[in-house]
């Protein structure tokens, strides 16, 4: 109770205004001092499986042996979807992915469906793709290299990659709603 007058002194209108202005001035000076020099914040320069970073590059083959390299797709919006044929949420989101792919592929959007082949079988994946009529590239990550470089811990995991090669969003788990896919694809195009 004995130091109560100190608080009241600080809180009298004049003193409080001066105190507030001093705090705000210090704050403004700190904002100025801590302005980010170029390269201090991420501008997509480092490859990491994380929004804001450059998507780690990879080359994988489809069932016919045609190799696709991610970095060759610069200039396009890309969805890298890591999946397996036994995974229920993966199965559930594929039809929506197919519809969105059909709608946007001519505008420069691609889906790379990376099958986690070391925990699936290539024949089961091929059969699933044929049954669902999937026309986007299905790639086989036989040695698990993409799953490892993308830190995939759950199936499905989806990476939305902007035309400049940076990851815009990572979605772990599924199924992704069709509206979510549409909005994210539109957002990738906005950055072209």
């Amino acid at each position, binding site marked *: 109770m004995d130091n109560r007058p100190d608080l009241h002194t600080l809180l009298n209108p004049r003193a409080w205004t001066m105190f507030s202005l001093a705090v705000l001035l210090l704050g403004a000076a700190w904002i100025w001092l801590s302005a980010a020099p170029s390269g201090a*914040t991420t501008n997509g320069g480092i490859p990491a499986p994380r929004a804001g*970073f450059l998507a780690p590059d990879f080359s994988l083959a489809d069932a016919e042996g045609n190799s696709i390299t991610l970095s060759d797709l610069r200039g396009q919006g890309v969805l890298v979807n890591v999946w397996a044929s036994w995974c229920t949420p993966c199965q559930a989101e594929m039809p929506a992915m197919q519809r969105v792919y059909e709608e946007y592929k001519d505008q420069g959007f691609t889906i790379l469906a990376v099958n986690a082949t070391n925990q699936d079988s290539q024949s089961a994946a091929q059969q699933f793709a044929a049954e669902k009529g999937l026309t986007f590239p299905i790639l086989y990550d036989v040695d698990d290299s993409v799953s490892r470089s993308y830190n995939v811990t759950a199936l499905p995991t989806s990476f939305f990659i902007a035309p400049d090669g940076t990851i815009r969003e990572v979605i772990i788990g599924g199924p992704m709603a069709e509206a979510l896919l549409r909005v994210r694809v539109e957002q990738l195009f906005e950055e072209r």
Partner: protein
Amino acid sequence: MLPILQIGPLALQAPGLIFLAGLWLALSLSERNAAHRGINPNLIYSLVLAGLAGGLIGARLGYVLRYPAAFAASPLSIFSPNPGLLDLWGGLVGAALVSLVYGQRKGLALWPTLDTLTPGLALMGVALGLTQLASGSAFGSPTELPWGIELWGARRHPTQIYASLAAALILVLLRPQGRPAQRLQDLAPGLLFWAFIAFSAAARLLLEAWRGDSMLIFGSLRQPQTVAWLVLALSLWAFGRIYQHSRGTILTTEG
């Protein structure tokens, strides 16, 4: 590798679990604080749950309003459990509206209620930092300092831990039975809440300087710092005004 719990279509990861644990602890703390201050704890519990529900509905509605074409093409997506289909501002407006209406109907006074919730909010700040640490978001800029952590291809400032420590410090300072909290509540309702907002804004203003993912405005200024500065200005003004108002009332009554 962090554990992931797949429940049906929901993939609950470690960050989500930490966040839920934080929310539960914050709710318990707020209930206990309410009981201590003579407010019905059940009302506080229901208020928070109503606010969360309002926030979720508002966030989804806000998103639908922002991207109506996407939902027109697949209307069922409105009910999708995808957390990516949530709009922050819609959520805040929804939570605020529902909480205000619920509080009004139950006769909860605004400032004493916010004071009661303050320790819980501070605890959520601690949980949020740990959530970000588990998910690797809100990461720091590269550093050579010995306490730097390896993250996303570089040794970085552990900004998530800095944020958690700052929130813990604020929690200790404004803890429910602590002297500062008691004095502020004795002076006028609302002061404790605004003190918390001011401290939190000041902490963000300070710590954002070590973030490696800051959004920039005007070339090189960090956007979150400018927002925190404005929030700090607002909270200092509100704190002073509530205090002056309460003094005016006391002096008038005494006079």
